[in-house]
């Protein structure tokens, strides 16, 4: 009697890459806009970035149906928070909420690989990186998704504090300026697009700073 196997999967991977970089007083969150399934492209123009609160922006890659449900859930919780506390949720608070929400479905997870970026209560940039079941950590920069294995080593090279003699190596909030960080993000996506078939078409870049939110798009290779 051999084990019964399911002949369908509740999950699909729609691909794509997400990146976030925290600066001294800004945060850059970026994701490509390609949505795929298998070896096909579903659309070249799908945003993986969602503004959850004034100072918290989520970029997620993975199974977009799960991600849509997750974003809606978080948005509803944020509304309730605003009614009860008369203010917006801070980024660290949203980070904890996201972690709890993901772990809630520990035994039927959201197939979502998340990067949460924003400004903390002191106005400094913060980035939180997650796995599918809610384990999270505050970091200076992160990449998730199909291109993450190509992107992360490059970000380590550029942003991790240089001295390998000083352990543990800290990836502190980068001293780069906002414009330099945006440039780095563009470079990173262009490189990832070259070798990852699921990354391409366009990159959507969201910049959060004291003045508010700014959005930029840049074309990428469409093959």
């Amino acid at each position, binding site marked *: 009697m051999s084990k019964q196997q399911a002949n369908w999967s509740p999950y699909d991977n729609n691909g794509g890459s997400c990146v976030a970089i925290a600066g001294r007083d800004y945060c850059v969150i970026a994701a490509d806009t390609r949505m795929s399934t298998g070896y096909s492209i579903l659309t070249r123009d799908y945003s993986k970035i969602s503004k959850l609160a004034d100072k918290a922006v989520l970029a997620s890659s993975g199974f977009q149906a799960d991600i849509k449900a997750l974003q809606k859930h978080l948005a*509803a919780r944020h*509304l*309730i928070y605003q009614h009860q506390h008369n203010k917006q949720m801070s980024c660290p608070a949203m980070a904890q909420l996201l972690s709890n929400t993901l772990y809630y479905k520990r035994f039927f997870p959201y197939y979502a690989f998340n990067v949460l970026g924003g400004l903390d209560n002191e106005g400094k940039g913060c980035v939180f990186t997650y796995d599918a079941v809610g384990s999270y950590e505050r970091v200076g920069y992160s990449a998730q998704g199909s291109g993450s294995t190509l992107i992360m080593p490059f970000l380590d090279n550029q942003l991790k504090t240089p001295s390998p003699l000083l352990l543990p190596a800290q990836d502190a909030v980068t001293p780069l300026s906002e414009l330099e960080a945006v440039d780095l993000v563009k470079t990173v996506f262009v490189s990832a697009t070259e070798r990852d078939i699921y990354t391409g078409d366009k990159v959507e870049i969201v910049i959060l700073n004291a003045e508010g939110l700014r959005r930029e798009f840049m074309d990428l290779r469409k093959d």
Partner: protein
Amino acid sequence: MFRNQYDTDVTTWSPAGRLFQVEYAMEAVKQGSAAIGLRSRTHVVLACVNKANNELSSHQKKIFKVDDHIGVAIAGLTADGRVLSRYMRSECVNHAFTYESPLPVGRLVVQLADKAQVCTQRSWKRPYGVGLLVAGLDESGAHLYYNCPSGNYFEYQAFAIGSRSQAAKTYLERRFENFMDSSRDDLVKDALIAIRETLQGETLKSNICTVAVVGVGEPFHILDQKTVQQLIDAFEIVGEEEPPAAEAEDTADQETAAGEGAPAEEGAAPMDI
């Protein structure tokens, strides 16, 4: 109203076909401080009197934002009102989650009314002791509803509830025909004047009243004290179009007998109006 042998349980009918506990709940609404609402084609304004119990305490919150397109003002047992507002907010959030569109006001008030009705037909519950003025905007336009503890609800062009609300109602009755085409600012002005009517001579100041607006292109929000004070100053300077306080009080006495707290033997029970 006087005590009688049919008023102990909400599930006991009187021989005249009345539920006294429900009527007593509506009395509780009349004891609360005044709240008024009025609407035009495109805007709805809610205003209420905020009297603190004593100088040292803060005042009760009586106007609640339910969603971007709906707000509510309460009079009566404010704790009941707070709980009902939480219910309304939850309904709006759930509806928006499921249907990706704002909950129509008419649906919300029906749900609220059904919730209130349940409490009039369970021996282990008591009716909610709060009247709600629900102001909202949806595809069919701007709406103002009044929800009773009895489970009834009505749509109004303008209405006032709570203590000394008759004075405000008299003012609104004279002016309501103009409201439909009023501008937003005129509507707010009328709301403030109506509130002033309920104060019976006391000076209207922004620290004893709260005003909230919802309209086309304007999500529900409570006006801040500074803005309200500026509006009060603006129309006081222009010169008041006064219903003299005396006239308002006389009409109030007459109408109280006929309409509001009908004594046990007279006419239709209040909740049937």
